[in-house]
């Protein structure tokens, strides 16, 4: 049967039409893939790049007078308005303004103004004016570096006092309080005196530190005072050379990777989320790999070839298609409440009613993800086991190997690339999953990492942060804050990098195994 549209074409034309059609759709696929990568990389990368500061003059509507602002300008050509992120005396830490493109009178790079990043994650756009020190009020701006070093030294002293003296004394005091023995009173008194003495030292140092301040001015001439101890960095963005901009960007990347989120996940770093993601995936892999491999071995090597086995096999493959939120609900209902609750009543009954294992935590999250990714591992492993040639198994049996020896010595090594494939897929899935994790342990902000120096070091009951959840959370800030849209993209970029790195590692391992066991 010849289709009407094909009727006018000869065989060669018809073939080339088919080829161009298929190529066209492949092209569209490529474009989609590349644009995802480009968008994420560009928007994510922009988060780290120092944003130039402009002096913007805006026509005011009522008084025919223009107003000047220091602002980061976000100009989207598609829109009527220009988005400004500016700071003034009323909003020293910045706010946003949408202005009509026509009402912008002039736009010039403000060379004197700086982006002043604060330790709490906020930032100030202003013109640094002078430095205030205990010795004098009108120090040159060039003194700033020296003063910052001085303040850093003071801060270091305070930290040392806090960690080395105050914290141990505080701990000792709470031990006394717990024991509540009258005979301890003199020793306790002594400790209290020591504590007060050190605390006085700290207070003195802090007071001394507070005397170092930076005075800045906004575009309208109003001044604003910032304690130097609160300043993380001062960058005169307009004066930076390309190399210096790169330096700023790299230090931003380092902060992003090593610090905690600040200002409700709109600035600072994502280290806890990165750490939580990797740790959760790691625990999940430890659980799911032996579980899946053993189940697959039973199904493909031992299970009798009956209808029941077929039913099990089909349901395992179908489990891979169950929506992930269902696993989340299961994890919450079964693992957290039922299992965790029982563990609490058995082992941690002294702390009840406040739950220990009976609340969402990283272990339950890892276990839930293990259940979620189990079908993937089982199916891939079975596939790998099926590829082991019967002749090799027979050869092994003929040399006197038992079934278990044959499986361990011959079948599993040959199937290992298949097993790795399953684990790779499981890792990629678990690293990017969000919905079930929010039910069983991932939170927007966790006060502590799941690993620390306190016994038992790995706290499986703690809630944790996850990159996917962080992205989900920061997506809701994007409407109100220009920069956090980029924070979301930056976290996306990082998640992509994490998944890519994990994948590449696993692929390398798989290639090595394949070389060793398949090609010989």
């Amino acid at each position: 049967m010849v289709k009407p549209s094909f009727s006018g074409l000869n065989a060669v034309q018809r073939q080339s039409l088919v080829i161009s059609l298929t190529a066209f759709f492949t092209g569209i696929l490529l474009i989609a893939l590349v644009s995802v990568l480009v968008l994420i990389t560009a928007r994510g990368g922009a988060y780290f790049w120092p944003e130039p500061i402009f002096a913007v003059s805006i026509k005011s509507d009522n008084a025919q007078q223009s107003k000047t602002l220091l602002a980061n300008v976000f100009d989207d050509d598609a829109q009527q308005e220009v988005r400004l992120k500016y700071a003034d005396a009323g909003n020293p830490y910045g706010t946003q303004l949408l202005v009509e493109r026509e009402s912008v009178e002039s736009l010039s790079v403000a060379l004197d103004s700086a982006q002043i990043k604060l330790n709490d994650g906020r930032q100030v756009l202003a013109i640094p004016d002078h430095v205030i020190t205990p010795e004098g009020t009108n120090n040159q701006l060039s003194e700033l570096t020296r003063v910052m070093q001085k303040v850093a030294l003071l801060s270091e002293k305070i930290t040392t006092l806090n960690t080395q003296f105050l914290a141990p004394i505080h701990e000792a005091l709470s031990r006394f309080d717990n024991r509540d023995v009258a005979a301890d009173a003199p020793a306790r008194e002594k400790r209290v005196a020591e504590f007060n003495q050190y605390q006085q030292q700290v207070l003195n140092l802090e007071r001394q530190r507070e005397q170092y301040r930076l005075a800045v001015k906004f575009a309208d001439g109003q001044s604003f005072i910032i304690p130097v101890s609160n300043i993380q960095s001062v960058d005169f963005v307009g004066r930076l050379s390309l190399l210096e901009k790169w330096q700023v960007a790299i230090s931003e990347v380092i902060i992003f990777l090593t610090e905690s989120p600040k200002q409700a996940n709109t600035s600072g770093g994502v280290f806890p989320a990165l750490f939580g993601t990797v740790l959760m995936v790691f625990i999940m892999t430890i659980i799911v790999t032996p579980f899946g491999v053993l189940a697959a071995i039973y199904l493909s090597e031992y299970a009798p070839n009956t209808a029941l086995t077929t039913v099990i096999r089909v349901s395992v493959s179908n489990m891979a298609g169950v929506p992930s939120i269902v696993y989340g609900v299961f994890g919450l209902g079964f693992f957290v409440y039922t299992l965790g609750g029982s563990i609490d009543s058995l082992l941690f009954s002294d702390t009840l009613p406040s739950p220990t294992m009976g609340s969402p935590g990283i272990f339950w999250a890892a276990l839930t993800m293990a259940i979620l990714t189990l079908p993937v591992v089982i199916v891939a492993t079975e596939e790998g086991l099926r590829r082991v040639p019967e002749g090799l198994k027979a050869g092994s049996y003929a040399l006197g190997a038992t079934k278990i020896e044959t499986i361990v010595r011959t079948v599993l090594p040959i199937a290992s690339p298949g097993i790795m494939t399953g684990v790779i897929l499981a890792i990629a899935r678990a690293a990017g999953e969000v919905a079930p994790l929010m039910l069983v342990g991932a939170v927007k902000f966790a006060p502590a990492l799941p690993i620390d120096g306190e016994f038992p070091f790995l706290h499986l009951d703690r809630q944790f942060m996850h990159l996917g959840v962080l992205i989900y959370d920061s997506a809701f800030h994007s409407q109100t804050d220009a920069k956090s849209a980029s924070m979301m993209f930056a976290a996306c970029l990082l998640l992509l990098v994490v998944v890519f790195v994990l994948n590449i590692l696993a692929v390398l391992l798989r290639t090595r195994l394949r070389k060793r066991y398949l090609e010989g």
Partner: protein
Amino acid sequence: MLTLFKNNIKPVSELTSEQTAVEVKDLNLWFGEKHVLKDITMRIPENKVTALIGQSGCGKSTLINCFNRLNDLYDGCSYNGEVIIDGKNINSKKVNVSRLRAKVGMVFQRPNPFPMSIYENVCYGLKLQGVKVRRHLDDAVEKALRQAALWDEVKDRLFDPAMTLSGGQQQRLVIARALSLKPKVLLLDEPTSALDPLTTLFIEELMESLKKQCTIVIVTHNMQQAARVSDYTAFFHQGKLVEYADSDTLFTMPEKKQTEDYITGRYG
């Protein structure tokens, strides 16, 4: 030289049980409903090469799989009768199958080296037997490879992957692997059908030298090969042992018409 060996070939009927390596008594075997081996009774002589010939599907491979109970691996296989090796009926439930298989070596139609190094391939069976001392393993590997006439070709690359060897070398490696366990009986299931004529000749010469140490049973489709290498030949047809005699007699003066037709190539 060949005539020298052929001279002490006794007729099958005169074989005593002391000279028998494998004695088969009333062996019947079914795959599900299919009756594959029917009342096989034969004595396979010690330190001789016995060839099993016959059409595809006549049960000769199944028969040698009975000698190391490899048929146990297949679902739906059932059998009765006796196969006596070393004075014991190996079809008995009490037999340790792993130990039996270590004593009865087997080489398959397609070379099936494990995806490991040459060295590891040869000591696979020994390690299963619990040999751990490196020096013993080294000695056994060298000895087995020498017996399989492969030593000179691989002695400088023992730790290369076995897959890098040629087909003929792989088959000899597999023979060395079987020999490393010093088997009493070596079963060869069409060992040369996947190999070129020169390599085939090589392996045939190997069999000649190996029969001093062990009894060889070879399944082959190649009539010339059976005549060249074997001392005794058994002809099977549709699961039945049709004729069994020393090779000289069987190939020159077959008793049965069926045998004559098959060996002269007139058969279906």
